[in-house]
């Protein structure tokens, strides 16, 4: 095929570079009008003036040195405990098992605390649900604890003014209203806690006219209702992506955001690894969507359908499966030709893997989900890859109940509305309507921990604790319980919402005089509940201690869900009908800010979206058109960062644009969760809110629309920040003079003359192959690598092997097939290593500080490419080119193979960053950590008054074992040297050899799919050594002879080639 690009590409600028792009890409950092101009005047050029300057500086230097020398060193105090707790040894970290829960998002975790401060989240490997994996949101959640915008006391809004009140006063006022209210409604998102549900039960018993309504901002109502209808059980069943050989996802981002992404990603990856080249086998993944989601980007085949064609696509697959299996077909809506042809192929694959396949859909249309159930039923997947035993409870929201609440409120029949951490004013399609309806409610109470659009229109704010300050439990899946324990006393005068409800319900079971009342309540709830269901422990105390220690409890339960029932024959008209509109838009959740409740977290705002690679805002994804013969155009000729006026369902917004490969022609995509207007300083007015562009169809929220209009370019986004073209390695472009293709970041080398080794061979950043030809690929790879190695062996320098083979040598292996690009490692790295947040403007200037970035490359067909994600961090080269250009030896090699960076020695020449072929070194252009003495060097990430990170509260999250870097020094991945040293010290103290697993880097522990392995490569038995033996491994840029210590295994794809024909 002509439109097939053999090599990987990074984006449109790569394939069709503009002169400015080449200019910029050739520079490490963007230079433009943002740079502080240095006025060149006659005087500044004259020599005499320079001498005078010299004398001035000399004088100042001597003066300053004199003053500094005569200054007394400030007296520092050392405060011991008065009574030292037995469990705390200052300087030694404690880990507590807990759970991260936010709405329906769940992750079993270990909380690392130092001197009583939670500073890092790790996955809990005992959990059968998340299996020790985490995601970006979980990793970042520790920063929310130290959010300066948290409500610090209960508040009361009186005639538009916010007043601080005492809890006792708030309780008295609320209870008075509750006693007299006609209708009481509790509104929440999904609640996973069985004890919280019990507390709500006590509340509704006390107030019989009370009712609990729950909804999910990104709704799964359709799926739940479908399961109720098909199986009589309103839950999300347990999926086993690891048992499926063929996976079909209909607009369902199960690796990034859908229901339980950590769990699914781990399952998915087990069936995608290629460890045995001779018998390579992996699952095949089809994704049917219009906008490229994280899951779609990992798929082997993407089948493009418009958002309105989703129903038609499901029907087409159903018909294809049914007809081949001899069942009745339905008269579904018409699907585009290409997709409907593809569906036949998909159906063939599915049938060939009956009982070992899985079809999932993210649709919120009940009938589409029932049809999907029917497909799975026909394929015999129930009981094989789908089970109602251990079903997921992570989404329980009910759209219809919510819409009913709106009408009740409008009718004035709701006297008291208690909003538990939900934000309906922001995240409902009819949020504005909800806000107006709220005005008719007598008393509105919010338990929000931070300001939100909903909280600010409430009468009382009864702020809840952060989850790290609370006692609670969770039941993410039926029979899978986990506990949440506090790892720090509440920082402020807050109270968890369960406690508030129990106080208001005047529950007799809730002893307000106890030291920790809710702890007692939780314990007694477990004693009467979960303790009775198990047999392993005879006393409650031992049961409780063990469960609290592990953080989890497994009490398997079977389901009473029946077999599939119901008819689908008449569904043709109930599915979403394809639109004839020329343009459609879909709204999707991103892995970072999710439904918007994560928008207040700076780490998540700064984490690039894996697909669009944009930060600090949402961008309208517009398709890239292919005109044949390697000619491209973009939708309306728009370029990245252009502003357009978008009109959806009559609502208008001005949004910036990002050109997106894989976006179906005639469709657009826009992320949800941005454009918060009442949030912390971080999240305020970042991006645009697209929730109100979604619509309610038949009582359920539909996250797409066909009533779209887009203007041409109306302006340019200020500080457009997409990191895709930052720090690129080996981006090729056409040299304007010679018209030849060259690596743009080596333009200089080429113009200086040929013969520079790095530029005369094609760059090997990504290696990829189809699963059917892995063996052949491994052979070619081997030959090619031998060639590189032969060239590399021709060196004048002596080898350091003897040194490096002695003792420990650290190395890393990254499996590109397991990596799904979710960004958990990237946030874990920021958290572990005190990597600063720099804000949009600085990212725009290529100044982002992340030590670990996830590069995105496309390959395959230009109109519908495949994607490969490559985590890229310092490769700790044994022949490091950065080391020998440092004039002050601030970066050098350790005998354990770690490329060391010594901040206090660095003078900021940036030669090393310039000489790094992987572009992984980061320079502190400004005082991002506010470690300097000069406020003028500090910066602001979102116009906040106190600089982010400058206040003592935010600084509590810092890892005390890692230096906070100042302005003017280079930093980069250290292989988590603090963990390396800690692991070695533990082994030495215990008088034993280092064991594999003693040292795990932060990225390795964060990864939900086990794509990263770190360890001692001198130990042949270590996991990393074993992974390094795989014959599809390669070193990135091996040809430049830097001898990196990070090895990658090639991306293997299992695409169905027959679909493209």
């Amino acid at each position, binding site marked *: 095929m002509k439109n097939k690009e053999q090599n990987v590409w990074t984006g449109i600028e790569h394939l069709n570079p503009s002169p400015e792009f080449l200019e910029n890409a050739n520079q490490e950092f963007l230079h433009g009008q943002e740079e502080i101009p240095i006025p060149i005047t006659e005087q500044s050029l004259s020599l005499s003036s320079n001498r005078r300057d010299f004398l001035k500086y000399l004088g100042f230097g001597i003066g300053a040195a004199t003053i500094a020398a005569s200054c007394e060193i400030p007296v520092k105090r050392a405060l011991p405990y008065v009574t030292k707790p037995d469990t705390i040894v*200052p300087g030694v970290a404690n880990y507590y098992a807990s759970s991260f829960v936010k709405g329906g998002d769940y992750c079993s975790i270990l909380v690392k605390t130092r001197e009583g401060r939670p500073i890092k989240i790790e996955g809990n490997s005992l959990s059968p649900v998340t299996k020790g994996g985490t995601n970006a949101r979980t990793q970042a959640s520790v920063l929310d604890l130290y959010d300066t915008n948290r409500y610090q006391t209960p508040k009361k809004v009186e005639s538009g003014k916010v007043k601080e009140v005492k809890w006792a006063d708030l309780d008295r006022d609320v209870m008075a209203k509750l006693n007299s209210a006609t209708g009481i409604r509790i509104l929440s998102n999904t609640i996973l806690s069985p004890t919280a549900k019990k507390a709500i039960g006590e509340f509704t018993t006390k107030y019989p006219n009370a009712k609990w309504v729950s909804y999910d901002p990104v709704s799964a109502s359709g799926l739940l209702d479908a399961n109720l209808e098909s199986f009589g059980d309103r839950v999300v069943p347990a999926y086993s992506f690891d048992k499926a050989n063929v996976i079909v996802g209909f607009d369902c981002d199960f690796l990034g955001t859908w229901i339980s992404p950590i769990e699914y990603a781990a399952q998915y990856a087990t069936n995608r690894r290629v460890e045995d080249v001779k018998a390579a086998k992996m699952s095949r993944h089809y994704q049917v969507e219009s906008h490229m989601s994280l899951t779609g980007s990992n798929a082997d085949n993407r089948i493009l359908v418009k958002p309105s064609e989703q129903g038609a696509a499901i029907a087409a697959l159903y018909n294809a499966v049914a007809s081949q299996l001899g069942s009745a077909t339905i008269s579904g809506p018409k699907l585009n030709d290409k997709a409907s042809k593809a569906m036949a192929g998909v159906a063939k694959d599915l049938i060939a893997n009956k009982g070992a396949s899985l079809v999932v859909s993210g649709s919120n249309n009940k009938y589409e989900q029932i049809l999907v159930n029917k497909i799975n039923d026909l394929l015999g997947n129930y009981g094989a890859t789908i089970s109602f035993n251990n079903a997921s409870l992570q989404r329980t929201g009910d759209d219809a109940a919510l819409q009913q609440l709106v009408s009740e409120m409008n009718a004035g029949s709701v006297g008291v509305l208690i909003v538990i951490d939900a934000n309906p004013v922001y995240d409902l399609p009819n949020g504005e309507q909800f806000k107006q309806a709220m005005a008719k409610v007598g008393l509105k109470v919010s338990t929000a921990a931070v300001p939100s659009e909903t909280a600010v229109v409430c009468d009382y704010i009864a702020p809840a604790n952060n989850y790290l300050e609370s006692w609670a439990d969770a039941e993410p899946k039926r029979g899978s319980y986990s506990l949440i324990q506090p790892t720090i006393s509440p920082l402020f005068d807050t109270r968890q919402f369960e406690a508030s409800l129990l106080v208001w319900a005047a529950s007799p079971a809730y002893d307000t005089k106890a030291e920790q009342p809710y702890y007692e309540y939780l314990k007694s709830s477990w004693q009467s509940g979960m303790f009775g269901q198990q047999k392993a422990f005879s006393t409650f105390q031992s049961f409780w201690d063990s469960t609290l220690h592990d953080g989890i409890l497994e009490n398997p339960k079977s389901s009473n869900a029946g077999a599939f029932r119901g008819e689908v024959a008449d569904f043709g008209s109930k599915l979403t009908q394809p639109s004839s509109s020329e343009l459609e838009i879909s709204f999707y959740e991103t892995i970072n800010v999710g439904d918007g409740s994560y928008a207040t977290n700076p780490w998540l705002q700064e984490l690039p979206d894996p697909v669009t690679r944009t930060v600090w805002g949402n961008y309208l994804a517009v398709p890239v058109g292919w005109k044949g013969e390697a000619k491209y155009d973009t939708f309306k000729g728009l370029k990245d960062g252009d502003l357009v006026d978008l009109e959806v369902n009559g609502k208008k917004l001005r949004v910036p644009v990002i050109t997106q490969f894989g976006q179906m022609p005639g469709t657009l995509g826009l992320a949800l969760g941005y454009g918060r207007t009442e949030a912390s300083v971080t999240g305020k007015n970042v991006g645009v809110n697209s929730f109100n562009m979604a619509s309610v169809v038949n009582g359920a929220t539909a996250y797409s629309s066909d009533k779209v209009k887009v203007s041409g370019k109306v302006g340019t986004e200020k500080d457009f920040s997409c990191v895709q073209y930052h720090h690129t390695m080996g981006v090729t472009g056409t040299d304007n003079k010679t018209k030849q293709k060259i690596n743009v970041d080596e333009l200089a080398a080429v113009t200086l003359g040929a013969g520079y080794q790095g530029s005369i061979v094609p760059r090997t950043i990504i290696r990829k192959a189809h699963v059917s030809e892995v063996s052949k690929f491994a052979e070619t790879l081997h030959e090619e690598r031998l060639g590189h190695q032969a060239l590399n062996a021709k060196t004048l320098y002596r080898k350091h092997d003897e040194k490096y083979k*002695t003792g420990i040598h650290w190395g890393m292996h990254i499996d590109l097939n397991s990596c799904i690009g979710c960004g958990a490692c990237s946030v874990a790295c920021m958290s572990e290593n005190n990597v600063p947040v720099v804000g949009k403007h600085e990212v725009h200037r290529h100044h982002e500080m992340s030590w670990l970035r996830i590069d995105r490359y496309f390959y395959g067909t230009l109109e519908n490419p495949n994607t490969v994600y490559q985590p890229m961090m310092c490769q700790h080269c044994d022949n490091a080119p950065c080391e020998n250009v440092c004039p002050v030896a601030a970066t050098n090699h350790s005998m354990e193979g770690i490329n060391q960076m010594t901040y206090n020695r660095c003078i900021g020449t940036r030669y090393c960053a310039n000489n790094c072929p992987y572009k992984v070194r980061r320079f502190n252009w400004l005082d991002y950590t506010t470690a300097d003495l000069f406020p003028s060097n500090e910066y602001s990430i979102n116009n906040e008054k106190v600089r982010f990170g400058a206040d003592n509260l935010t600084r509590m999250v810092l890892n005390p074992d890692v230096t906070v870097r100042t302005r003017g020094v280079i930093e980069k991945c250290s292989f988590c040297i603090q963990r390396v040293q800690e692991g070695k010290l533990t082994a030495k103290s215990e*008088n034993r050899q280092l064991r594999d697993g003693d040292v795990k880097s932060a990225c390795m522990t964060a990864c939900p799919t086990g794509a990263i392995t770190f360890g001692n490569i001198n130990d042949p038995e270590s996991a990393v050594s074993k992974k390094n033996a795989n014959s599809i491994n390669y070193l990135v840029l091996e040809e430049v002879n830097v001898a990196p210590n990070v090895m990658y295994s090639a991306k293997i794809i299992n695409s169905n080639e027959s679909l493209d024909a």
Partner: protein
Amino acid sequence: MGKKYTYLQWSAVIMFLLSGMMLTAAPDANAGKDLFKANCAACHNKNMKDDLTGPALGGVQERWAGREKLLHDWIRNSQAVIGSGDKYANDLYVKWNKSQMNAFPNLTDDDINSLLLYIDGVFTGAIGGKPVAAVGATSAAPEQKSDSNILYWFIAGVLLILSFMLLKVVKSLNSLENSKDGTIAEPYSFRQLITSKSLVGFALFALIVLGGYTTVNNAVNIGRSQGYSPDQPIKFSHATHAGLNKIDCQYCHDGARRSKHSLIPAANTCMNCHKAIKVGSKYGTGELTKIYASIGFNPNTDQYIANYDNMSEADIAKIYKQWIGDSYVKEKELPALDDNGKIEVERQWAELKSSLTNENKPKIQGPIEWIRIHNLPDHVYFNHSQHVTVGKLECQKCHGKIQEMEVVKQYSSLSMGWCVNCHRETEVKFQDNAFYNSYKRYHDELKNGKREKVTVEDIGGIECQKCHY
């Protein structure tokens, strides 16, 4: 022309003189005196004839005659010698009730020779005091040493005479040359001499070198505070606790073995003993009451005070003033508190209050805010357990003889050079720890004699990211 010769000659003379002075690095009784005062005087009687905590040192060389090397080892680390099974050493150890002598690994052979010279000098009366009746003949060793000293002085003297002679020769040659030219040699005036280009040049050069050296040295020392010994809120005496009572360092500093911090003990650690010992040997109730006031212990009733955190200052004052007063009465065996007693109570209370409060801590209750003595910059990572548990270092190695300090002072410079030097010299206990098994090459080299020892440097101990990350 001739002048050059002259000054060259002058400088030669100066050089010779200087080199003569520098060569005197032989044993020196004065150095020995300083060493004795610094290291030994706490336990050994300075008259060298009577026993104190340790035995009299006079005549020590006879007692160890013929085993000088072992004596040196004994002085550096007596426990090692005892451990080696030497009979005399073990007998001595038993005789002195197995009280250990401090280790002085830093003493060089020269230091010990100086020390022995001094001890012998005092013992025999050659240094200070009146001569004693000879117990034994003075040993020959010191004389031999002074022999070489005399030799150096002799050489220096000869060289000096030689230079003067040469000077004279040059002068004569100069005048001869000048008289050849027909000019009459005029002797330089003093003024000419000191304003001559060469001398001014030399002076300037010396000034720059000296100034530069001083500047750099002082600049390097900015931020270092060797010898820093601030007054602490409580006059806690390490000499009493660690020296006299021989409490193990890690009883209180329990972090040293397992954490990066050695940890200042919490007040409840103090209470382990001071719940019983309520009056101190040196300050009576003056200092100990501060601990009680910090933690909320009522020494009158031997009970911890309930809800102490919320107690008013007046109530606190009542409790502790009563305690101080009662103790005073008891100590002086008075029937009731007299006027002096009242003054003493007020004095102690005022002192207590000023010690436990400061501008950031208005309340008496709560942690004792000690003044931190050992401060490393933030970019330095230091871990106590690595050195104490793994390296098995004595605390004194870095902190000095803490057991003799009334007021703790910073003993070491804590400079990077100081750290690195030790890492260069210190031998890793390579055989004792299974962790080092992976360093196969070093083990092989040790076995086949290619390598004598493995230092911390050899396993990467002076690499940047051992301490900076």
